[in-house]
């Protein structure tokens, strides 16, 4: 149990998908102008990562490992992820047209969000069991959502302040992202004993 908890904290905070592994930076800069959009994106990505990692585990275990088809890993994973994204897109369109409009092009782009494939590949590398890999995927995506929401909050404030013209817009956003990453480095000091 303790190992589970530690693994989840590690996945969410210490080895954060965005700030430590630098995955999913496209959506990190793209949809963090408003907190509600970022939260929606975080929710959608959490769903996709969790579901696809479960499916990927099954594919890896029962298909690729069983028949020695390791070289097909990337193709099959992308296939699974793309289907999960399509499914999510349809659901969101049905449930919340407003969120659908706000996420815009970034919603189908979850397919190519490297955080999704990255987490799936990390799971294979870690050779985890079904339960722990699902937990790991979920914790990673929660970490992703957390950073998205924090950064969106920062950018909402950033939009109001008078930034010197040289830094206005994306430059100051990148500087803030760097500071946020440095702040998250502090989590690596969590004592495990």
């Amino acid at each position, binding site marked *: 149990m303790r190992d589970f908890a530690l693994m989840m904290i590690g996945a969410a905070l210490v080895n954060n998908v965005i700030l430590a592994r630098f995955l999913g930076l496209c959506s990190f800069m793209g949809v963090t102008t408003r907190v509600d959009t970022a939260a929606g994106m975080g929710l959608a990505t959490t769903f996709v990562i969790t579901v696809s990692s479960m499916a990927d585990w099954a594919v890896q275990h029962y298909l690729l490992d069983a028949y020695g088809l390791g070289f097909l890993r990337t193709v099959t994973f992308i296939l699974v992820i793309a289907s999960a994204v399509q499914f999510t897109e349809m659901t969101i369109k049905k449930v919340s047209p407003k969120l659908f409009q706000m996420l815009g092009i970034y919603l189908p782009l979850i397919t190519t969000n490297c955080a999704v494939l990255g987490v799936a590949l990390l799971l294979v590398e870690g050779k985890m069991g079904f339960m722990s890999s699902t937990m790991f995927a979920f914790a990673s995506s929660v970490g992703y959502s957390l950073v998205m929401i924090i950064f969106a909050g920062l950018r909402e404030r950033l*939009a*109001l*302040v*008078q930034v010197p013209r040289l830094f206005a817009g994306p430059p100051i956003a990148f500087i803030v992202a760097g500071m946020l990453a440095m702040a998250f480095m502090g989590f690596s000091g969590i004592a495990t004993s």
Partner: protein
Amino acid sequence: MGFLDRFLKTPNWGVHPEDHKRPAADVPLRLFPSPERIFMPLHQHVGGAARPIVMVGQKVLKGQLIAQAQGNISAPIHASVSGTISAVGEVTAPHPSGLPFKAITIDSDGENRWIDSEPLADPFSAAPEEITKRTAAAGVVGLGGATFPAAPKFALGKRLKVTTLIVNGGECEPYLSSDDRIMRDYPEMVIDGARLVMHAIGATQALVGIENNKPEAIAAMRQAAAAFPEIKICPLPALYPMGSDRQLIKVLTGIEVPSDARAAETGVLVHNVSTCAAVHKAIRLGQPLVERIITINGGAIAAPGNLYAPLGTMISDLFAFVGLKEAPSRLILGGPMMGTPLLHDRIPIVKGASGILAFNAAEAFVPEAGPCIRCGNCTKACPMGLLPLEMAARIRVGDLEGAEKFELQDCISCGCCAYVCPSHIPLVQYFSHAKGELTAAERSKLRTEATKRLVEAKTARIEREEREKLEAAARRKAERDAAKAAAAKAATPVAEQTQGASA
């Protein structure tokens, strides 16, 4: 009242600007000689503009009705000098835009002859409605600066069963001393006017709030009110904006007027001391509101002080009377905190004009605005408990709805935040801008809705006309067919016979 009470009662908002009221406040009131020509604006109050009822060339007496009130919230306008109407035209409005508005020009005959007046002999035995009616007919509006017509406010107070009348002698704006002067020179008029207002609204007590930087006014008013136990003179700490109604109510009665309610709904009604004096004149002397005390002050004025001047007098005439030391760098109608900047001095004074300030270059200097350093001084100063820095930041980037979420509509534009801002950010202008834009957006939304209704009405009308046309055509066709059939019938016997024969 113990020391601790006093300490606890001190409000935790507001600012202490240097008041600059003296020496102008101590100079005896001067009577402004009748000007050669006055420009009587038709819109000197909140609500609908008055409708002129005089012709060019017509002779009028002082106090004669020259424009009627129009609509529920409006006030009539009376001639402030006797003479001849020379034009019904336009004059620059006392407004920051410098746009013109309608005004009646009267060439004075220099005699200042009053029209015959009919004072109310015993107002306290008359019905309260009679006082309200006469106040409305005299064109009395709130003279503190809001210029809301007094009579509808009386009616509102009566309807909502107001128990307490608050007489506002706060005059917290620096430089101004017209209310101070009226309390010093005519305290009986103010007290009597307050009693008349109490009678009109059915109030049982009156609290006169006067800032403690006006000891002479407090003494004079105490003496005048000595005979009337229901009127209490309450000295107030000198603090800006003490003269704002919500703040005054809070300090005097402890009641906080809710954001979405009017003061009258909490059982109190606020009237300015000058308004009370105007009510007194309207009822006891039968004189409409055509003159007022106006403070002329500022570094550019040679002999600052208070003038008793007819409404509609050009500001330039007043300046000629008091003398200018130098060309004013900035002109303000009202006080320096909330007053209206004027573009030039060819503007007539109106009912709400409590003062004209002519600032010299040193007084008019405005430092350049810097960025917000989030010191939070503005939030401490704000008497409404708002967050000016948050609102201004949102307005700056055009997020007006965001500013509205910080209760922008509760802002009273008192200027405390801008006064204390170490970065000299023109916060009030941000808020005025945003409020104006939001009102305009609201208006255009209403307009869109009205347009939709009009379009629907037109479509419905055209459909109806088409239908009627079709129906009429069908009817005509039926009639024609019937006529044809009848004609055919008349001609058929032969045909039938032949048909029958052939069958």
